[in-house]
């Protein structure tokens, strides 16, 4: 068998057929429907219905201060949360990749457990942690730092903490492969030449893994853009992010054409950022 032989005839194509059929029908077709419906007409009194048409009404609705505000807060939350999770996540991942095998596996199991937790559960745990009756403020009262227990949710800070917490395990797993590939000989060489560990970290490790850090930041930014439960529970209505608007239009108001148009816009931003990630990845290979 040569590695690059071409499939000839029908039989070798059989393994291609089922995945192509499934992904085509149930992943690509829904997108096609969404593109088409975003131009459809929405009758005055129809919840969850649409009429065939071709209009830009839904796209023109973006130009309102309300949507502009929600887009800005979405981008703001996504950017700050991505930055925070990379700031904490990168040193952690780097150290983790230098652990011996056993503690490394244990740490990875722990990270995977936190990662797999439903956004519902994460948002709920944070609302408990920041609540007055069961929250961390009681601990601060006990320490004498606060006079009486306080409720810190809902609020801007609560959303930000929740999002960062939700992102952190993803940050670790995105950066982990490249961190393990960094040869220990390089850092050892820096140390032998007299650089302090801190200096080695900032002048050798960070620059070498800079493309990875950037990639992680962009992936997390895109990822956080889609946050749904966290801003809804830990924030006030002015903190509602874009996914909530889409769900509100689609499920609560039954305006599927407008929800589709919002999704198209949202996807355009996302794809632009993914393209940027790919370009960064390519530069990394060239180095």
């Amino acid at each position, binding site marked *: 068998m040569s590695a690059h032989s071409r499939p000839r005839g029908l039989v070798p194509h059989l393994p291609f057929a089922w995945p192509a059929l499934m992904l085509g029908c*149930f992943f690509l077709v829904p997108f096609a429907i969404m593109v088409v419906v975003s131009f459809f007409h929405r009758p005055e009194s129809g919840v969850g219905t649409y009429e065939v048409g071709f209009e830009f009404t839904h796209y023109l609705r973006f130009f309102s201060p309300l949507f502009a505000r929600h887009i800005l807060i979405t981008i703001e939350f996504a950017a700050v949360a991505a930055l925070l999770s990379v700031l904490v996540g990168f040193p952690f991942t780097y150290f983790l990749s230098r652990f011996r095998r056993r503690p490394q596996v244990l740490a990875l199991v722990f990270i995977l457990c936190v990662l797999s937790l439903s956004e519902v559960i994460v948002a709920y745990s944070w609302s408990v942690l920041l609540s007055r009756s069961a929250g961390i403020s009681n601990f601060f009262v006990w320490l004498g730092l606060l006079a009486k227990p306080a409720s810190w949710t809902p609020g801007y800070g609560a959303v930000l903490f929740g999002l960062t917490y939700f992102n952190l*395990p993803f940050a670790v797993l995105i950066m982990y492969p490249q961190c393990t*590939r960094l040869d220990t000989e390089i850092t050892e060489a820096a140390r032998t030449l007299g650089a302090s560990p801190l200096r080695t970290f900032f002048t050798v490790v960070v620059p070498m893994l800079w493309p990875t850090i950037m990639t992680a930041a962009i992936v997390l930014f895109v990822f956080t853009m889609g946050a749904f439960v966290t801003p809804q529970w830990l924030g006030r209505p002015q903190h509602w992010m874009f996914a909530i608007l889409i769900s509100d239009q689609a499920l609560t108001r039954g305006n599927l054409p407008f929800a589709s148009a919002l999704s198209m816009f949202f996807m355009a931003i996302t794809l632009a950022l993914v393209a940027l990630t790919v370009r960064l990845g390519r530069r990394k290979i060239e180095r």
Partner: protein
Amino acid sequence: MIPRVARNVFCWLVVLSLSLPLFIVAGVSLNQKKLMFFPPRGLSMRWYEEIFTKSAWLDSLLASLGIAALAGVLALSIALPAAYFLWRYRVFYAKLLFSIGLMPFALPPVITALGMLMLWVPLGLAASVHGLALAHGIFLVTLPLVMISLGLESIDREIVEAAETMGASPSRTFSTVILPMVVPYMFAGYAFVFVISMNEFIISFFIGQFSLATLPVKIFSQLRSGYTPTIASVSVLFILLAVVVFSLVARFGDLPRLLGAWTPKER
């Protein structure tokens, strides 16, 4: 050496702050009365019993388990042939198929959820276990696809060539040489899909639409209508599920390798 201490302190701080909310939820789940206190006032396991005795919670649990189990099978059935086809023949449409398989993870899930909703409703698939399993199987296909590809890449192509020189047909080579070497990666992929399907919220929320509530959707709607400590005990159940499944994956598989680690030499 001081930096080493600083490094360990930092790592422990991260682990501690990641586990803090989980500890508090575990504590809250033990409260005797229907109130949210930490430390818990009076110890009781009644909120754990309630998951299995109250039909609303039990129905959600069973639906979630069924969806997760089926979604894993479907995701594997798509990922294995797709990954094999790309590995065997590096043709452009195999690469295209692979990239489509990666897409669900590169887009905000709410978009996938909305698109699926608009197809699932006319097909009569919404609010059914098989409909949701289909949605999760497609949405989570990325995980086994990437893992099985990692497994295939670790196969020495000379072994495959040897089998074919000895006269094995492609299907025989696949079932006796390739498949046994990829099986651990398939198990891992299944485990990941299972756990993440159990936890997935937004697609379940769109497609289930409250008439079929998976556990996360049930928690969500319950929190809207009023607090009950069962929310906390269900959360603990999820944490335990993840601990058990991922420990098993780590025990029987090479977890660092599954997650993309590549070490030239043993440390």
